Each structure stands twice: as C-alpha cells, then as structure tokens.
C-alpha cells in the first residue's frame, strides 16, 4: 500500500473520528480506503478531509427504520384527519417511474408502519407509479405521500412534483414529502411548491454553512486543491449542484463531496464510499 503521505498522527486522528462515529475499523475495508485516500493528499488537504469527516452522516440500511419513525413524528396530527385513504409512492424523477431506486426500498419499508399513529388509522396503500392513483384523486379525500431516503438539491423531487401537477393533474397541496435526510437547500427549493415536508435529519452545506472565515476559506481552498488533483468533472465538484453534502445512505448521493465517493483510475484514487 502506498502510505508515503500518511503519518501516524493523521492515522490516529482518523481512528478517533471513526470511534466517535461508532464506525467499525476492522469489520470492513472503509477505514483502509480512507487511509489510502488520505495518503494521496497534502497535509492541509488531509486536515480538510478529517475536519469534514467529523460531521459526516452515514445511514446504513439497518438505521432506516429509526429514521422512518423519526420522520413520521413530524407529521401534524390533523394532516390526515379528514383523509379517507392515504397513498404512498416512492419519489422518483418521471423518467425513473417503474425503476428500482433507493426510494423504492424506503417505500417498501413502510409496509411495517401502515398502522402507525401518524396515519390516524386511515388505510395506507403503497403504490409504485402515479398510475396507481384513482382518477378522482383531487376530488376524493385522499392524500399522497412521496417518500425517499435523501433529498439533495431538490431537483428530482421538483421534477416529480411538476410531472404530477402538469401531466397527472394532482393538486400538490394534497401531497406530503417524506425524506429520511434532506439538504436545507433542497427543502428551500421545494417548500414553495405546495407539498408539506417532513424529515428525520436536515443538513447544511458541509463547508459554507458549517464554518466561518478564515476556516471556511481555508477549507474551500483545500477542497478545490483536492478536486483539481483528482481531476473531478466540474459538475460534481463540491457535490452535484454544489450541495456540499456529507451524507452516505445505502448509496452515497452524488450531492456529497466527490472525494468520498468518486473513484478514479488516473490518478488512482479509491473512494471510501463508492456509489
């Protein structure tokens, strides 16, 4: 292994961060991949990655039930009081309807929570596409919940909502968006469209929102240096749509800084959380 740029001190710092997160170091190769990534970087770049990793949120599939329950507690009791039926569908871009995405997995997980008190005893019907909605949905006392594990920039959700409104003819005020983790930027983008939004965790931009100058400036410069060295495409620098996310779900969203998920062959870079 090439560890020419990795010192014991950096190794100790990384171990400390893993321990604080309760991430295992010996049962999987994530720790070693982190080390290989850090070994490629200059000291100030290593410090940048270590600092950001302290705030990294990793949600394994075993934790999805916890976050589903937490998100459900955000539903206002009166929301479904007048509803006759609740439909629940995975949140996907229109071109992905019918495809298996992470939101499909989340929707499937809701089978266990159909009797949850958040639904006020109303029947919950889990559907896969808008074709499962009744023709008289707007006129009926029905509600639609769109679920996903992660909302980043909000672009996917916006596309889905626009499709439902313009093509299917759904009243967006009859929709609830439920995400396990949401970037604040995406929530801001969606909140004016009509649907209510509940979530388990809300996250800000990893550098811009979490640090003040001069630290923010130093971290920004270090990350620019890292991304130039690893030759990432411009559209994913600082995460897709510059979301600066520090999140890994079952799959790492591309809104997360690419140093965490984008492996490269030239130069050789093995990402710790590959997609």
């Amino acid at each position, binding site marked *: *292994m090439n*560890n*020419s740029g*990795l*010192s*014991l*001190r950096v*190794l*100790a710092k*990384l*171990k400390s961060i893993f*321990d604080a997160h309760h991430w295992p*170091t*010996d049962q999987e190769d994530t*720790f*070693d991949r982190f*080390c*290989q990534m850090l070994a490629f970087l200059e000291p100030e770049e290593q410090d940048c990655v270590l600092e950001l990793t302290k705030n990294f949120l990793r949600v394994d599939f075993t934790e999805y039930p916890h976050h589903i329950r937490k998100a459900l507690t955000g539903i206002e009791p009166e929301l479904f009081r007048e509803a006759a039926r609740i439909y629940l569908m995975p949140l996907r871009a229109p071109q992905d309807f019918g495809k298996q995405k992470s939101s499909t997995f989340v929707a499937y997980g809701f089978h266990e929570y159909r009797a949850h008190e958040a639904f006020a005893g109303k029947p919950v019907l889990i559907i896969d596409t808008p074709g499962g909605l009744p023709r008289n949905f707007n006129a009926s006392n029905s509600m639609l919940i769109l679920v996903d594990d992660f909302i980043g920039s909000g672009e996917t959700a916006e596309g889905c909502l626009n499709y439902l409104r313009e093509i299917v003819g759904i009243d967006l005020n009859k929709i609830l968006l439920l995400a396990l983790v949401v970037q604040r930027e995406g929530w801001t983008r969606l909140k004016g469209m009509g649907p209510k939004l509940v979530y388990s965790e809300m996250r800000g931009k990893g550098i811009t929102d979490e640090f003040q100058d001069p630290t923010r400036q130093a971290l920004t410069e270090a990350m620019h240096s890292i991304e130039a060295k690893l030759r990432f495409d411009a559209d994913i620098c600082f995460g897709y749509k510059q979301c600066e996310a520090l999140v890994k779900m079952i799959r790492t969203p591309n809104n997360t800084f690419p140093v965490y998920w984008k492996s490269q062959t030239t130069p050789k870079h093995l990402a710790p959380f590959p997609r």
Partner: protein
Amino acid sequence: MSEFQPSHILRLLHVVRYRLPMDELSSLGLAYSQIAELLSLGLRDHLIEDSGEEGLVLTPEGQNALDKLIREVYPRNPNEWILPADQHRIPRIGRFDIYLPKRKKGGK
C-alpha cells in the same frame, strides 16, 4: 496489547521514537486498520501520547517498554537504534545448497 506480537509493538514504539515513516509498520504486513488499532492500544496503555506541536511522542513508560523490547527481541544488539529488517530475511538454506535469487523483470 497482547493480540499483537512483541515485534509489532517494538516497531511502533521505534517509529514514534525516531519519527520514522509508517512504511516501517506496513512493511510488517499490517493493514492500516491494524496499525490504527496498535496505535490506539499504545495511547490507551500510555506508552504514547500526543504532545500537540511535537506530535506523537513516547511517554517515559513507552521509552522503558521500547528498551525492554529491544533487549528481548534483539538480544545481540540491544543498543542499536537501527532495527534489523526482518521482513527482508530469506529462509536459511543448507550449507551446500545453491542460492538462486529471483530474477527481477528486465534485469539480467
């Protein structure tokens, strides 16, 4: 630190003492996660501490442990600060056997 061999512990303390690169540990065949665990144990047992500006240093207990381990593992040269590179030793062969080193690529 019983799950690691004395030679591993010795090498860790030696690396910290003389500020050597981590290659000295990885050349023993240890993965990063194993080196991290070894380091954690050294910190936990107060053989090593983070002194801040100077980085990781041996504590007095760590220096004593280093001296003791050198005498135990290398009794013939306990006062040398350069440790034998055990990882490069070749197995002993018979007195009348012919040693043929492996040919390197592109070499003669």
